């Protein structure tokens, strides 16, 4: 009961709990003491078990005892703790029992009680991890299991058959017993029925784990996964037992002590350890991956062993048994089949048991194909991740190292708000590329999260680079526009200064001369014509200044593009049609359009020998379109350094375009399109 492991104050004070805790300590101590008997070889109890196996035996019993005790101390009422404690205890109980009995009974008990080794793991599988059955109907399963185990053990205790191997000369205490003989003769069918029942209870344990896995989520799911991993080892061991048995049969040796027994103990240890990890440290390892790999190799081993055995037997019939060729061919076939088979099985296991991960990774791969075909933009990877992870609120934020900020797929800079979503950093070659904001529930599905993110790593980096590039480009464009804007502002200031500064002073100078002239005494009237000339000069200077100011920036632009172009048309030496709407757009755009029109008109008059020019402007969908058409000789090109080339850059700075079409002999048309606001 991991989620309730912390003691509540009430539980701690409860005397009943305290008693249970003492009982758990008692059981654990008894188990250890009983276990010490064979380990220390008291009364020859160790029998024929080799010395190196002793630690395995000890671990196999101490592991469930320790785990059970630890859980029981923290949470004395936990059923799983008691299943493990008593499970190990019941098996070790045979040691003092055997000491007290004669050799015949000792052997009989030893022969009959081996199913007890499997009793506690199966019981744990039924109630893990919350200590309760999946449903009341599982009581029948438990009932059937108990009947099977007790029945099999009971019938084997009654078995009057002789012992085998080294003990063949020890008489069976049941030999000649009426009950034993009757049972042996009449209940053999029952024995096999109960035996199948025992196997069925094992399968039921696997089914229970599978059902729990399907129904649980979050922490509970991870816990069940740990147990599932240990349970998976059972078929592995069975397969290895088969192989060693088969090889033993072929080679005439028995591997029981060397292989089968250690493996059986190993499963026992693994089971206990996995329960312990599941209860205390369920996030310790990438359990999903562990289960996945174990599953793959279990299936692979089983298949290869089956193939090897099948081939050896099949070819043996054809080529005569014992032929080296048979073994060689079977080995070759199995060796060649290993890699492709592994891949197929991995795929199958992924699809069958890690459906979400499999689908998620496939979603990412499909997206990569779509990007390659140009059907999708790489920036959409964020949406794809949300789909692949089945978290519609998941969002990807790209890291921009240059600006030290995060951006979304559109390139908008965003703050990572603390809205309760989990953040998973995505790195590539040690450098952060992005952060995924996602539901915290995904942290319990690290296999899915990591698998999908690993598959998407390249796409994410590509999208990030594109976002970064787009941002930098936008920044460059913005700064170019700012520079041009500043240029226009400067022109405007210069024009103001000319009008309000120098021109004003010239006018007041002229006015003073006029006052002087009008105040001249009668006798000095002869000076008057000279002063007239001075004022004329001043007037000329003012005219010049006005011209210069108009070249810098026509003040008429203050009244809008249409007014400025109308003025331009009036001052032109050839007729100019102007069809420009009166509506206003921002001043810098009007100025850019004006200067283009000015340049085009100058070119038409100066080089194209045009007799008529028409200027049209229209605003469409936020774009100002201006065209200047003449009826001149055509053949104009935008040369580098020419007036139009400079204007092309200026128009581009506003995000616009300038196009010149000038077929020889058919006039010239200059077209400008500039994005604008009103």
């Amino acid at each position, binding site marked *: 009961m991991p989620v309730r492991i912390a003691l509540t104050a009430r539980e701690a004070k409860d005397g009943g709990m305290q008693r249970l805790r003492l009982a758990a300590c008692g059981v654990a101590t008894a188990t250890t003491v009983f276990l010490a008997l064979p380990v220390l070889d008291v009364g020859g109890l160790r029998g024929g078990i080799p010395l190196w196996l002793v630690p395995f035996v000890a671990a196999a019993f101490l592991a469930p005892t320790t785990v059970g005790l630890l859980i029981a101390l923290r949470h004395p009422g936990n059923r799983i703790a008691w299943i493990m404690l008593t499970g190990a205890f019941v098996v070790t109980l045979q040691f003092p029992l055997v000491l007290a009995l004669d050799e015949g009974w000792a052997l009989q008990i030893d022969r009959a009680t081996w199913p007890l080794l499997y009793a506690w793991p199966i019981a744990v599988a039924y109630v893990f991890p919350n200590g309760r059955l999946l449903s009341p109907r599982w009581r029948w399963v438990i009932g059937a299991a108990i009947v099977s185990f007790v029945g099999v053990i009971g019938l084997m205790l009654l078995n009057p058959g002789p012992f085998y191997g080294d003990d063949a000369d020890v008489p069976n205490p049941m030999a000649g017993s009426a009950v034993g003989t009757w049972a042996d003769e009449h209940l053999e069918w029952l024995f096999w029925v109960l035996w199948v029942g025992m196997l069925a209870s094992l399968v039921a344990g696997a089914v229970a784990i599978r059902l729990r896995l399907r129904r649980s989520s979050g922490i509970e799911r991870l816990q069940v996964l740990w147990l599932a991993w240990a349970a998976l080892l059972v078929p592995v061991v069975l397969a290895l037992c088969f192989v060693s048995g088969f090889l033993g049969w072929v080679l005439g040796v028995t591997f029981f002590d060397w292989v089968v027994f250690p493996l059986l103990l190993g499963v026992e240890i693994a089971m206990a350890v996995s329960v312990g990890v599941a209860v205390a440290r369920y996030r310790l390892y990438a359990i999903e991956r562990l289960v996945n790999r174990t599953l793959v190799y279990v299936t692979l081993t089983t298949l290869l062993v089956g193939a090897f055995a099948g081939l050896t037997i099949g070819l043996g019939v054809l080529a005569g048994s014992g032929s080296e060729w048979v073994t060689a061919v079977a080995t070759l076939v199995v060796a060649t089949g290993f890699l492709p088979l592994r891949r197929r099985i991995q795929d199958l296991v992924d699809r069958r048991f890690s459906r979400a991960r499999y689908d998620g990774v496939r979603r990412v791969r499909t997206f990569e194909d779509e990007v390659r075909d140009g059907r999708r933009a790489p920036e959409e990877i964020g949406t794809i991740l949300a789909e692949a992870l089945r978290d519609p609120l998941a969002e990807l934020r790209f890291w921009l190292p240059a600006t030290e900020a995060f951006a979304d797929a559109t390139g908008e800079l965003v703050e990572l708000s603390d809205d309760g979503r989990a953040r998973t950093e995505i790195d590539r070659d040690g450098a952060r590329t992005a952060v995924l904001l996602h539901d915290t529930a995904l942290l319990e599905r690290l296999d899915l999260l990591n698998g999908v993110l690993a598959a998407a790593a390249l796409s994410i980096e590509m999208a990030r680079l594109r976002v970064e590039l787009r941002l930098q480009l936008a920044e460059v464009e913005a700064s170019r526009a700012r520079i041009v804007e500043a240029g226009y502002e400067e022109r405007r200031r210069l024009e103001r200064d000319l009008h309000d500064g120098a*021109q004003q002073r010239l*006018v*007041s100078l002229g006015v003073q001369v*006029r*006052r002087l002239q*009008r105040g001249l005494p009668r006798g000095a009237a002869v000076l008057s014509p000279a002063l007239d000339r001075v004022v004329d000069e001043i007037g000329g200077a003012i005219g010049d200044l*006005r011209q210069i100011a108009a070249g810098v920036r026509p003040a008429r632009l*203050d009244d809008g593009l249409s007014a400025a172009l109308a003025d331009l048309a009036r001052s032109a030496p050839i*007729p100019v*049609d102007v069809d420009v709407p009166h509506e206003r757009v921002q001043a810098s755009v009007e100025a850019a359009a004006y200067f283009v029109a000015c340049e085009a008109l100058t070119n038409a008059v100066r080089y194209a020998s045009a007799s008529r020019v028409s200027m049209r402007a229209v605003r469409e969908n936020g774009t100002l379109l201006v065209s200047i058409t003449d009826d001149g000789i055509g053949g104009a090109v935008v040369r580098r350094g020419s007036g139009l080339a400079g204007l092309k850059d200026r128009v581009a700075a506003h995000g616009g375009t300038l196009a010149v079409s000038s077929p020889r002999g058919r006039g010239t048309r200059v077209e400008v399109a500039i994005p604008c606001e009103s």
Partner: protein
Amino acid sequence: MRIVIADDTVLLREGVAGLLEDAGHTVVARVGDAEALLSVVAEHEPDLAIVDVRMPPTYEDEGMRAAAEIRQRRPETAVLVLSQHVESNHAVELVGSGGGFGYLLKDRILDVDEFLEAAERVSSGGSALDPEVVKQLLVPPAGDDTLDQLTPREREVLGLMAEGRTNAGIAKQLWLTERTVETHVSSILGKLELHGADGHRRVLAVLAYLRAAV
């Protein structure tokens, strides 16, 4: 004539005031911005306000807006707007909206007699439009040949009419007799189909015609 002057260039303002006083007018107030102008107009109720277009704080068209304001609040005060450069849209609009209004480029002051005459004309309910503005108005837009029907002399007369001059003024300017000018005027009005216009209404009709043509 009682006059107020609004111009932020002190030297020029004093010079113009001097010219006007030399000519026998009374300059009752000299100010440097539009706000002050509106208050002295309310205070002194002058016959004429001479206003610079660009004044503090933004140096855009404060003078023009103050002129429109004066016209609305105190129509008895005539307004003569002085500008550094031609802004014909505003100018034609304001001059064309009624008498007692003038728009001249600043350097016209240097032609003192013309300037004084324009000031007097405006204050007595007439109008004055800068020749530069009129010149732009008289350039025929492509495709319209109505103005082409006029003889060169008639176009000259039309221009002076648009400037707001009386027949006598036109006659003096062109060294013609008033009768000859009258003949030209009626011929022009006939060709442009502007009938029954007289006095300042004549200027309005001519301006309206020219503006429509642009």
